[in-house]
């Protein structure tokens, strides 16, 4: 089994599609309230902070810090050859807002290290935002 067997994300859900549209443009966007700026993550259409239904996709910096990680050593489903490492990254531009990523093997990681987003095309229509450790001086 290879990466080609990995399940692609649904990208046309009414609540989450803006994230994937931004990814196709090479941008990271999170959903936020247009009226009070409250971040709505995971993406949803109603702002529970101010009661507004006016939301927007806010483009933010594709950088963050590592919140946690785990290296999976057993095959769970086809397409993910162990060992592989799942990362959770806090976005620099949006406190307490985070996204997952996938790295091959058992990379050297530490919680709090700077990470940057890379955009991985997985088919003609879908780009998967991924994370990698930031190299060099930071």
């Amino acid at each position: 089994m290879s990466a080609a067997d990995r399940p692609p994300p649904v990208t046309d859900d009414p609540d989450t599609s803006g994230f994937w549209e931004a990814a196709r443009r090479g941008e990271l966007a999170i959903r936020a309230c247009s009226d009070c700026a409250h971040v709505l993550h995971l993406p949803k259409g109603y702002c529970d902070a101010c009661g507004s239904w006016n939301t927007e996709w806010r483009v933010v910096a594709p950088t963050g810090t590592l919140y946690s990680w785990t290296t999976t050593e057993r095959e769970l489903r086809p397409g993910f050859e162990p060992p592989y490492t799942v990362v959770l990254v806090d976005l620099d531009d949006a406190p307490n807002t985070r996204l997952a990523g996938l790295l091959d093997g058992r990379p050297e990681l530490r919680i709090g290290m700077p990470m940057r987003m890379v955009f991985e095309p997985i088919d003609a229509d879908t780009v998967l935002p991924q994370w990698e450790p930031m190299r060099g001086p930071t």
Partner: protein
Amino acid sequence: MEQFGHRDQCAIAGIGATDFSKSSGRSVLTLATQASLAAIADAGLQPQDVDGIVRCDFDVVSHNDLANSLGVTDLSYWGACGPGGAAPAGMIGQAVGAILSGQASTILVYRSMNGRSGFRLGKGRSQELTGPIGGNGTYEEFFVPYGLASPGQMWALLAQRHMQSYGTTSEQLGHIAMACREAANSNPGAQMADRTMTMEDYLASTMISSPLRLFDYCLETDGACAVVVTSTERARDLARPPVLISAVAQGGSRDMQGGISSPILMRPDPMELPSRRVAETLYRRAGIGPSDIDVAQFYDCFTITVLVQFEDYGFCDQGEGGAFAESGAIRKGGSLPINTSGGNLSDGYIHGMSHIVEGARQMRDESTSQVPGAETCLVTSGLPISSGAMILRRDS
């Protein structure tokens, strides 16, 4: 002390369980029926006496399936609770609510699964889905394409964080696995009855998703458990000593998330788990505190799940769960013996329902690791999506 509405008003009048195995060779309905018949007989009742049924939302057996199988002739109430392992305490809560509001008098609460030979929850709920993943409020599109599909990985990410924040160690998790195994070694019905575990064994077990090893993971089990809930007044006239439901509570986190399992990692603070709030509500309703608890059955899908509950249920300070685990308190003879049948980790994984059965055994002096003189037992259900717990008490 304020008297809370449902305190001690209902009781567990009967308990039942099947054998726990890797391959039952029976349908989930047969398992549910066997456990239910055992619980009904234990109470000294007949299936025709049952007028209510409460199930877990993940159970493939529905209330009408079970009523038909048992020959229940006058079903007047049914309900369901979830998600999954969070259900059992909430299921008891529904039964209590139905009884105290006069909607039913004798309620069967059950969980049945071929969790090893059938659908294996440990691989994640999406394991059989093909094609694009996610949407429809599942939010799985943010997780499964990244290889994050299982509850074990989610708890591994929380464990890694706990280790970083508080210096929690693998050995401390190992003490939880060993306490459960020690209890299972005294329980002939446990799946791990004959398999001892040393710290060396624990540390040598294969890494599944770092920092969690094989022995941090619960078992996968074919089996079923059931209990009969009725009013305390009526239970006193039945066959067995009533096990009082002193209090039951459910709760979520301040910041809920949609979906199942992995989305909790996107809460502003994933380490703030619903068990903290459940504990506050539960102790207030029971009118007692953690120092009054004699024995506990903690939901243990993973060792780390137990460790964080030590903190949330007030048996130690935040961040001190690891130190509490290795202190000896949780083992036989300690101040808070846990999971005295072996728990999900070493008895069998019935999604939290066996914890209620074992809690009742403790209150009836029937545990294979009986805590002498135990008057109160804390029983918790699954987390981290939402959770529930209950305090059982011996009738006085």
